[in-house]
C-alpha cells in the first residue's frame, strides 16, 4: 500500500515537473498553426526527458549526490563554470516567465493588469518556499495541476474532425503552404519546452531532498516512465484543443488569454475557472522548481550547504541565492515585457544550453567509479545518445531559425 502511495505521489511530482508555461505556450501556438502535426516532437522530447531523468535519478540513488554536484568534478572548474553561467541565465529567464505567467493568470481571473500582480506573486512565491515543506509543495501543486487535463477533455465537446486530427498526429512534415523554417522553429521550441534544463537539476536535487536510495530505484523509474509521459499528454491536450478550436479560424495564438478561449467555448464559466486554476498552480509549481534550481546550481558548484532539509539559517547562501533569483526575475517581469515573449526567449536559450545539461549526465551515468553496477545499460545509452544527437541539432539550429523566421512569425 505504502509503495503505491509513493508511486502516486512521485507520478504527481513528475507531471508537475514536466508542464510549465513553456509547454503551455508552445503547444498552444503549435496547435493553432500546425494542429497536432508536431506531435512527434513532443513524443521525442518525452522520451528524451524520461531517459535523462531516469539516469539522474539513478545517479542520485547510487551516490546520494545530485547531478550538478558531479559536473564540476567531471568537467573541471572552467567548463563547469561556463555551464553554470549559461544554465543559470536560462533558468532565471524561465523563472521570470513562470512568474509573469502566474500574474497573467490572475489578470485573466480578475481583470486587473498583470503588472500589478508581479510583486505579490514574487513575495507569495518566496513565502511558499520559505515556509512550506518540499514534499507538500510538490504534491499539492502536482495534484492541482492535473486540472489542465480540461484541455484534453474539451476536445470531445468541441466536436472535432477526428480523421483530420489523427492524420496530423501521423505526419512528420509541414502542412502544405507552411514554410519549413517556421515549422522547424516551432519544433525546436516544443522540444526545448519538453526538455527544459531545470527539470534535470530540480529532479536530481529533489531526489536528494527526498533521500532516495537504491532500494527505491524501481519506484523512481516507474514515476519517471508514468509521470513524464502523462505530462506530455496534458501538453498535447492543449495543442489538440487549439487544433480543434483555433486552427480552422486561421488565427494565431499570442497571449495566454487566447490559449484558454477553447475551454470557454467548450465549458463556459466552469471551464474557465478550472483552466485558470490549473494554469495558476502549474506555473506556481514551475516557479518553485526554477527558483530552487537557481539555488541548487550555484550551491552545488561551490560546495555550499543547500536544500530545504537543512535548517534555513545553516544554508544562508543557498536561501540568499533563491531569494535573489526571485527578486531578479521579478525585476525582469516588472519592466512590463510580455511574459509570452520572455517564455519564447527562455526556450531558445534552453535549446542552446541543452547539450551542456545533458552531456555531463550521460558521462556520469556511465562512470563505474560513481555508480558501480548501476551504470547505464545498452538500451539506456542508445536512447541517451540518440536524444543527445537531437539535442545537439536543436541547439545548433535554434538561433539561426529564430532569426530566419522572426520568432516564428
Amino acid at each position, binding site marked *: 500500500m505504502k509503495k503505491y502511495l509513493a508511486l502516486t505521489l512521485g507520478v504527481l511530482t513528475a507531471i508537475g515537473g514536466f508542464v510549465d508555461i513553456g509547454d503551455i505556450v508552445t503547444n498552444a501556438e503549435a496547435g493553432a498553426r500546425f494542429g497536432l502535426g508536431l506531435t512527434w516532437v513532443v513524443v521525442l522530447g518525452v522520451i528524451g526527458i524520461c531517459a535523462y531523468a531516469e539516469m539522474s535519478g539513478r545517479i542520485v540513488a547510487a551516490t546520494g549526490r545530485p547531478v550538478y554536484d558531479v559536473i564540476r568534478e567531471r568537467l573541471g572548474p572552467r567548463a563547469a563554470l561556463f555551464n553554470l553561467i549559461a544554465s543559470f541565465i536560462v533558468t532565471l529567464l524561465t523563472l521570470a516567465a513562470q512568474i509573469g505567467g502566474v500574474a497573467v493568470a490572475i489578470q485573466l*481571473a480578475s481583470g486587473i493588469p498583470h503588472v500589478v500582480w508581479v510583486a505579490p506573486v514574487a513575495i507569495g512565491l518566496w513565502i511558499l518556499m520559505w515556509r512550506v515543506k518540499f514534499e507538500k509543495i510538490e504534491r499539492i501543486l502536482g495534484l492541482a495541476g492535473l486540472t489542465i487535463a480540461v484541455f484534453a477533455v474539451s476536445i470531445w465537446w468541441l466536436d472535432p474532425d477526428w480523421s483530420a486530427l489523427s492524420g496530423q498526429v501521423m505526419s512528420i512534415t509541414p502542412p502544405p503552404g*507552411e514554410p519549413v523554417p517556421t515549422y522547424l522553429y516551432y519544433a525546436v521550441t516544443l522540444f526545448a519546452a519538453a526538455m527544459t534544463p531545470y527539470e534535470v537539476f530540480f529532479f536530481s536535487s529533489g531526489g536528494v531532498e527526498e533521500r532516495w536510495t537504491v532500494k527505491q530505484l524501481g519506484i523512481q523509474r516507474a514515476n519517471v516512465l508514468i509521470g513524464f509521459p502523462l505530462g506530455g499528454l496534458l501538453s498535447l491536450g492543449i495543442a489538440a484543443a487549439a487544433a480543434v478550436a483555433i486552427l480552422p479560424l*486561421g488565427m494565431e495564438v499570442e497571449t495566454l488569454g487566447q490559449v484558454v478561449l477553447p475551454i470557454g467555448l467548450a465549458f463556459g464559466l466552469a471551464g*474557465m475557472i478550472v483552466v485558470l486554476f490549473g494554469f495558476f498552480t502549474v506555473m506556481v509549481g514551475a516557479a518553485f522548481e526554477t527558483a530552487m534550481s537557481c539555488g541548487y546550481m550555484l550551491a552545488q558548484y561551490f560546495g555550499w550547504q543547500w536544500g530545504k532539509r537543512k535548517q534555513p539559517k545553516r544554508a544562508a547562501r543557498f536561501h540568499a541565492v533563491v531569494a535573489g533569483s526571485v527578486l531578479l526575475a521579478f525585476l525582469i517581469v516588472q519592466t512590463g515585457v510580455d511574459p509570452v515573449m520572455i517564455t519564447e526567449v527562455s526556450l531558445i536559450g534552453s535549446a542552446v544550453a541543452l547539450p551542456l545539461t545533458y552531456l555531463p549526465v550521460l558521462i556520469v551515468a556511465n562512470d563505474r567509479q560513481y555508480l558501480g553496477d548501476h551504470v547505464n545499460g545498452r538500451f539506456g545509452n542508445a536512447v541517451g545518445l540518440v536524444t543527445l544527437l537531437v539535442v545537439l541539432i536543436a541547439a545548433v539550429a535554434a538561433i539561426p531559425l529564430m532569426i*530566419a523566421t522572426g520568432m516564428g512569425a
Partner: protein
Amino acid sequence: MGTGTRSRLHRLAAVFALALSLAACSSLAASTGTKEDQLTAVTHSQVQTARLAAEAGLEDPPAPAVTLTVVLDDARTELVGTQEDLAKLPGDHEDLAGLVEDAIALVDRTATAIEDGDRPALREALRQAEALATALEDRSEKL
C-alpha cells in the same frame, strides 16, 4: 584530428549553414508576403479572437466576462498597433485601414455586449465578426 580534416569540416559546416539560410530565406519570402499582407493577417487574427470570445460569451453559463474582456483588450491593443503601422506604410491602403477600423469597432461592441450580458448584441457581433473575417480573407490569397 588533423588540421586537414578540421578545415574540411569547417568548410562543410559553412556550406551547410549557407544552404540552410538560403533555403530559409527563399521559402520565407515565398510565404510571408508583403507588409500589407502581414498586417491583414494580424487584423484577421484579432477579428477571429473577438469571434471566439463572442462564442464563449454565448455559452450557458457564459465564460466569465472579466476573462473575455482581458482577451478583447489585448486584441484591441494589437489592432491599434496595426493601425499605426499601416499609417506609416508608404502608399495607399485605405481599403485595409477601413477594415482595421471596423475590427476595432467590432472588438469594442463585443466587449460592451459581454459586459452587459446582452445576448442578442453578442449574436450580432458574432455575425459581423464572421463577415469581417471573410472580407479580410478575400483581400489576401494567403489566408
